[in-house]
């Protein structure tokens, strides 16, 4: 984190304590000021400031032409954003909850992700899609999905998933400056879970780079989004037992940072992958492949995956049983160590 600040030309810029949702708001504001091609589209993002207040105050500053309350139509939001993108704008579309993105799935899968390729680079779609995701806030049905793997499976789309305020703003700005479409997944329970010092000016966190959030020698835990906090608690617990866990925050889910995974696993020789999404077809399987491809002969035990189950995310009375818990991660770590 500190390194990135040094690398940037804004190393002396002032910082403020921000929650993740404040950092996202600040990132949107920074780029609306910086780049007149940026426009925001979404349901309830204008006057209301977004259902999570991610766009609070932006409508008052930048007006209805740049912070646009749209009709209630996800396919319409993404489809028109494609047209805006190919004709000079840089739309940042908010989908109110990831669980409501499915009407736009066709637009993303068939057009957003392949227009560059289908026109040999003539038309491009430098748009950003922001979507809150994940369980754990006692939200109503469908609001808690964690279906990142549906999107990492789409060739031509980048997917990022910050776990805290600094990365959220930096990745969002990187997404807005990226020449290709980027889906930014924002975990709902992380929105106000912690505050961090965040530069008030412009900076970017490079897409495609994971982050070592905790150094260790005995086992690597790979996670992202809300699972970082769970992984760290499990690591705290293991440390008391003399086991030093290394924790990697993947941050970008496509393209995945293979080097950070390989380097860590080759050092620790063991790995546990934690994700909130369903097990089958989950991104954990791709990470297992990466470890297989890069580090197979270093491994001292099979890789464990601690994930959501192969069931629809339940209504909230059972949601704590759906998402990986600290206790499940600890058991996963112990299974690897005891192999």
């Amino acid at each position: 984190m500190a390194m990135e600040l040094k690398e940037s030309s804004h190393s002396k810029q002032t910082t403020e304590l921000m929650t993740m949702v404040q950092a996202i708001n600040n990132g949107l504001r920074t780029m609306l000021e910086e780049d007149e091609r940026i426009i925001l589209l979404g349901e309830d993002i204008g006057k209301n400031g977004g259902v999570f207040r991610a766009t609070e105050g932006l409508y008052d500053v930048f007006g209805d032409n740049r912070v646009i309350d749209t009709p209630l139509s996800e396919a319409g939001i993404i489809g028109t954003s494609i047209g805006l993108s190919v004709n000079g704008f840089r739309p940042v579309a908010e989908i109110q909850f990831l669980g409501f993105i499915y009407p736009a799935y066709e637009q993303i899968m068939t057009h957003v992700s392949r227009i560059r390729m289908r026109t040999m680079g003539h038309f491009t779609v430098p748009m950003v899609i922001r979507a809150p995701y994940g369980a754990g806030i006692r939200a109503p049905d469908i609001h808690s999905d964690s279906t990142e793997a549906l999107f990492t499976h789409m060739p031509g789309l980048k997917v990022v998933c910050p776990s805290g305020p600094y990365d959220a703003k930096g990745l969002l700005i990187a997404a807005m400056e990226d020449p290709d479409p980027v889906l930014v997944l924002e975990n709902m329970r992380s929105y106000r879970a912690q505050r961090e010092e965040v530069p008030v000016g412009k900076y970017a966190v490079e897409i495609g780079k994971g982050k070592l959030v905790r150094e260790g020698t005995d086992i690597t835990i790979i996670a992202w989004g809300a699972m970082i906090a769970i992984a760290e608690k499990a690591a705290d617990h293991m440390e008391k037992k003399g086991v030093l866990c290394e924790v990697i925050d993947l941050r970008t889910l496509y393209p995945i940072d293979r080097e950070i995974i390989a380097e860590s696993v080759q050092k620790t020789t063991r790995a546990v992958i934690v994700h909130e999404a369903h097990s089958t077809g989950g991104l954990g399987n791709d990470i297992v492949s990466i470890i297989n491809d890069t580090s197979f002969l270093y491994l001292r035990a099979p890789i464990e995956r601690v994930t959501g189950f192969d069931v629809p995310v339940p209504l909230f009375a059972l949601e704590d049983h759906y998402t990986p818990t600290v206790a499940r991660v600890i058991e996963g770590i112990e299974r690897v160590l005891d192999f």
Partner: protein
Amino acid sequence: MEQDYPIKRIIDNEGFLLDSSYESQISEKLAKEFYYHMVRVRTFDRKAINLQRQGRLGTYAPFEGQEASQVGSALALESADWIFPTYRDHGATLTFGADMVRTYLYWNGRVEGCVPPEGKNIFPPAVPIATQIPHAVGAAWAEKMKGTTNSAITYFGDGATSEGDFHEGLNFASVFKVPVVFFNQNNGYAISVPLDRQMNSATIAQKSIAYGIPGVRIDGNDCFAVYFETKKAFEHARSGKGPTLIEAVTWRTGAHTTADDPTKYRSDDEGKDFVDPIDRLEMFMKNYGYWDDEWASGIREKTDLEIEAAVEAMESFPAAEVRDLFNNVFENMPTQLIEQKDIYLAHLRRV
């Protein structure tokens, strides 16, 4: 267009009959039935908000203001009909026979809340927008294929008309002359977005033209207009003539949900002309000599007791079973899911 689709009213805002042709059809019994159900569902709704504030219920989507639309339309159904509601339509589902305890359970994150009473064709509330519209078309289409006279009604808001599923549902229903009633509650807002930002059309009823089906615009706060126009739409459906689009013009008096703050986007004077549908019915009953103070307080007392008992039953309902996380995903659980379940249950026994 507004002239082509005038708002149909049977009683005015002061509770006087505007259309004397209905005089013979509106009995004291009918008025009292409407009043009872509207008071009942409002008490349910207000209690839900209170429970949420006290941390005894999850996020809740109130329907206050829309009682005449929901009760009036639900009373027009026959018992074997189908109902496809949203999360803001408990006024309709409770009137049609949904279980109150389970309706509260739904908002406490309990899947038991999605299960209708035996023999009642009540679909779980649709949480994405407009997705239930094609479902209703399919269920009604099945009734037609089976040769029954049963029908289906689907509820949706003004915002839902912007989704593709609205178009697809209405198109299918019109092509296949499906016996379905599209009941739109135009309550002025989709969360924070007002109607004039949702659509360029002056009315929702006029969208029926595009499908070649009847469209009618009614005062959604006039329970009689709602009831008789919905009845007509059902007669149209049951006689093989296909669907009708009803636009019930009403008002969401409160927030989108208990997590929403309408002062962010709605000024105080908006909705100032709104006359509460229950007050309006009370005025009507007083104007025509149907009102009885003792009866009314009896209704309130009975309703309060029912709701207190429902809350108590909701709160003493057996705790959620972890196995229900895995059960019913399929009829026969696949091996890998059995394994996930067994591993997790064993884990729970250890921790």
